[in-house]
């Protein structure tokens, strides 16, 4: 189901959390709301869910006006940042909640909960309380609970924010598979550009309550609309008014006319890739990203003089 926010504004006191934002999310897509903290992405998600009422603007869910509709009536599944488990209920009862309040037959609830427990790999843990689960398990329980009433839209607020790096990576892959199977229109909020690039079909970059750019991951990375997007999505060097990605910094041992002289300040080896910190002869600092082989071929060492050429440098008026 397609979701649209049209000119949405939400203020908290004098603070404008969301400032005249319009987005369109296609049915069945996986969309990321990406931005630093305080950029308004969570507030926008809560407006879409009906948990906040916008001060101005409208929300449409599958073409129907939903701005004043209570969250109960939106058919939206929401996964909270800290999962909001019902602490006094077992995992089973948590997942069954959305069905039991709809007074579905017991046998149907039993079958659906068992199916969801298997889907989120928690079979056998239905009798536990949320406090007895690990962070990743609690997250999957929250997801199963949100999916139980078969929502048309799934909204996730920083779904992996509170998990450690490995669990996070596992859950990301798992969510991607889940989305491929279920085709529920999904919007997730994240401040992690890598997460957004990996998961989303479409990324909405937000900053200070406004939308900076909406684009598919590749376009966002290759053709950022402005300096903010360029610097927020992916690593970047800033040299005067131009911006260049570290992997677009080429190092040579000989000058060739279009190069700058620079000194190697530090070499950091991060497995496959190597980061070389440089100081140019005009005092500008930058870093280059090389593969291990490229770096080995140059036989770089600290203090060496190299010649730097940048590709695909961008400047924003």
């Amino acid at each position: 189901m397609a979701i649209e926010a049209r000119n949405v504004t939400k203020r908290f006191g004098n603070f404008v959390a969301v400032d005249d934002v319009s987005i369109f999310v296609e049915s069945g897509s996986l969309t990321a709301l990406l931005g630093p903290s305080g950029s308004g992405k969570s507030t926008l998600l809560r407006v879409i869910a009906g948990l906040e009422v916008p001060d101005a603007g409208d929300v449409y869910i599958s073409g129907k006006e939903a701005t004043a509709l209570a969250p109960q009536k939106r058919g939206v599944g929401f996964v909270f940042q800290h999962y909001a488990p019902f602490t006094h209920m077992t995992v089973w009862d948590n997942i069954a909640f959305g069905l039991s309040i709809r007074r579905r037959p017991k046998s149907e609830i039993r079958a659906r909960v068992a199916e969801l427990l298997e889907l989120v790999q928690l079979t056998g843990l239905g009798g536990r309380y949320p406090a007895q689960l690990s962070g990743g398990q609690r997250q999957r329980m929250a997801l199963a609970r949100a999916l139980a009433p078969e929502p048309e839209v799934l909204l996730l607020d920083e779904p992996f924010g509170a998990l450690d790096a490995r669990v996070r990576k596992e859950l990301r892959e798992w969510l991607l598979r889940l989305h491929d199977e279920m085709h529920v229109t999904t919007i997730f909020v994240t401040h992690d550009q890598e997460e957004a690039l990996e998961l989303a079909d479409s990324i909405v970059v937000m900053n200070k309550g406004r939308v900076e750019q909406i684009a598919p991951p590749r376009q966002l990375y290759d053709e950022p609309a402005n300096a903010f997007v360029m610097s927020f999505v992916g690593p970047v060097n800033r040299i005067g008014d131009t911006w260049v990605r570290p992997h677009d910094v080429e190092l040579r041992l000989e000058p060739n006319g279009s190069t700058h002289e620079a000194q190697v300040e530090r070499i950091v080896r991060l497995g496959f890739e190597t980061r070389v910190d440089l100081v140019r002869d005009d005092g500008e600092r930058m870093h280059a990203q090389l593969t291990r082989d490229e770096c080995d071929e140059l036989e770089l060492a600290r203090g060496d003089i190299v010649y730097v050429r940048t590709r695909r440098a961008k400047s924003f008026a």
Partner: protein
Amino acid sequence: MTVSARHGIRIFSLGYLTLILVAPVGLIFWRSFEHGWHPFWAAIANHDAVHALKLTLEITVIVVPLNTAFGILCALAIVRHRIPGMGLVNAIVDLPMALSPVVVGLSLYLLYARDGWFGSWLLGHGIQILFALPAMLLATAFVSLPFVVREVVPVLREIGIEQEEAAATLGSSAFTTFRRITLPAIRWAIAYGVVLTTARSLGEFGAVSIVSGGIAGRTQTLTQYVQASYENFSITGAYAASVELAVLAIATLLAMTMLRPRRGGHDGNRSA
């Protein structure tokens, strides 16, 4: 901390407790049963004493549910809804804690007396408030007002609104969310508040004694019966009624201690 310091603290606190609490209460029990069970039974079987006990229990049974319902609603209003003026209500709810019950009694007296603001109209319509059950209920309700609110407010704050929001996104109506999410989360706080309200209602003396008239066998509560018996040199009667009050208080306290450990269960463990 050294062993002797720990012993010192223990001896001091136990000694203080003995002096302030155990000795006086123990003395009452001892005096009541000094001459065996007989005089004690005779004293509490006395018509006025039985009536006073019944009246006290009656007041408690009416006031506690009222104040519990009000306390829950008031706590929800203070914590969950941004209603203008709730800050003021939050402050006023504590007033009965700070205000002397005598002042409460006096203000009720001024309101409902024959020439009071409400009294003249009510009496004109044949409704008697003062020196009757209504005034005693009002006085008791006033002094025992804050306990449920004070217990429930911090727990509501602590559990936050996320669980309620989650229930809403799952399709739960406001009432269902309250019944299935909020109420189970605050039930021990409510139980604790009910116990405190009950204890306060049973023991109320100051406010009630001003508005009840204290007519033996009619508008005399158990605490007033103790005072009246004492003043009439019916010492055994005073002791026996005191023992009844003490037993009720101890039963209430027992209920409270039985509730206390359960506040910690899995409900208490909310580490995210």
